[in-house]
């Protein structure tokens, strides 16, 4: 939560002074949202491990990677961009 808030609050400054591209502010905020979702993943992963569901965890990891990879592959094949899939 603190990371998310800090990222959102500092996105303006980071985009201007660190990345030196004000347009990247929205991308920092978007990535912060992904991190926020990932916090839920952390607890869920722990619950799976405590319950001994390692195979499920491995399958979910794999599905996540395949989904992300497939998404990027589609964007690549359709010559998409940062904000446009096709």
């Amino acid at each position: 939560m603190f990371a998310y808030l800090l990222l959102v609050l500092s996105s303006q400054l980071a985009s201007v002074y660190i990345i030196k591209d004000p347009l990247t502010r929205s991308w920092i905020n978007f990535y912060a949202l992904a991190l926020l979702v990932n916090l839920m993943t952390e607890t869920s992963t722990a619950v799976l491990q405590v319950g001994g569901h390692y195979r499920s965890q491995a399958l979910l990891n794999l599905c996540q990677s395949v989904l992300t990879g497939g998404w990027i592959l589609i964007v690549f094949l359709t010559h998409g961009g940062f904000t446009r899939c096709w």
Partner: protein
Amino acid sequence: MGMARSGAVLPIWTTSPRHILGLKPVGYEVINLGGHEVIDINQLIGMIEKRVENAARIEYLPRHPADASVNFANVDKARRLLGWEPRVSMEEGVSSLGELVPGRTQLGQPGGHPVSVLRKAWQTWRQDRLLQLVTRNSGYLFSSNGISSVITAVQGFLAALLLGPADFAVLGMVITYASSINRLLSFRMGELVIKYSGQYLALGRKDQAAAVIKPPGSARRLLLCLPTCCWC
């Protein structure tokens, strides 16, 4: 050195479980049990060398002031109270050293045939259910992570081709900045859940295990409900 149930300290030189077979309940008594031979340390080393078929590397140092020059067990009290007599010679005791620890019966065969070592390792693995479980679960995660790493490498390559050097560098900076902040303020709640709820589950206290899991989960559900309007 072994500790008997009655509280007696046993100076066991010929380390064999057979030494304590003669124990019987006599209340709390300090009783010496030991062999009936008096040998010096060089003889003992010689026996072990013979047992393991390997020469010891001996470094002679000045004698420690606290070392006893002679040490042997007076077993008169054991004879009187327990009717105990030493039956295992030093030679026999050293020979049976490998029997003390399960799975260590190959003691004294450091140069065992690789096939027999592998067979023993295989047998140990087949008999140890916990080891099987750890291996299997590690295999699942390792396979998943391995495939994911390959996919990540490929998608990074595709993204670089797609975006070009300038945009890819910007993407890298965005991800690096956000990840750094995240690492800085990460409280590793998953580890808390594993440590404490795992302990409670092992004790069969499911309610308390659930109580450990619920607060982080609830907090995160609440966070996910935060307005996403901050984006942009």
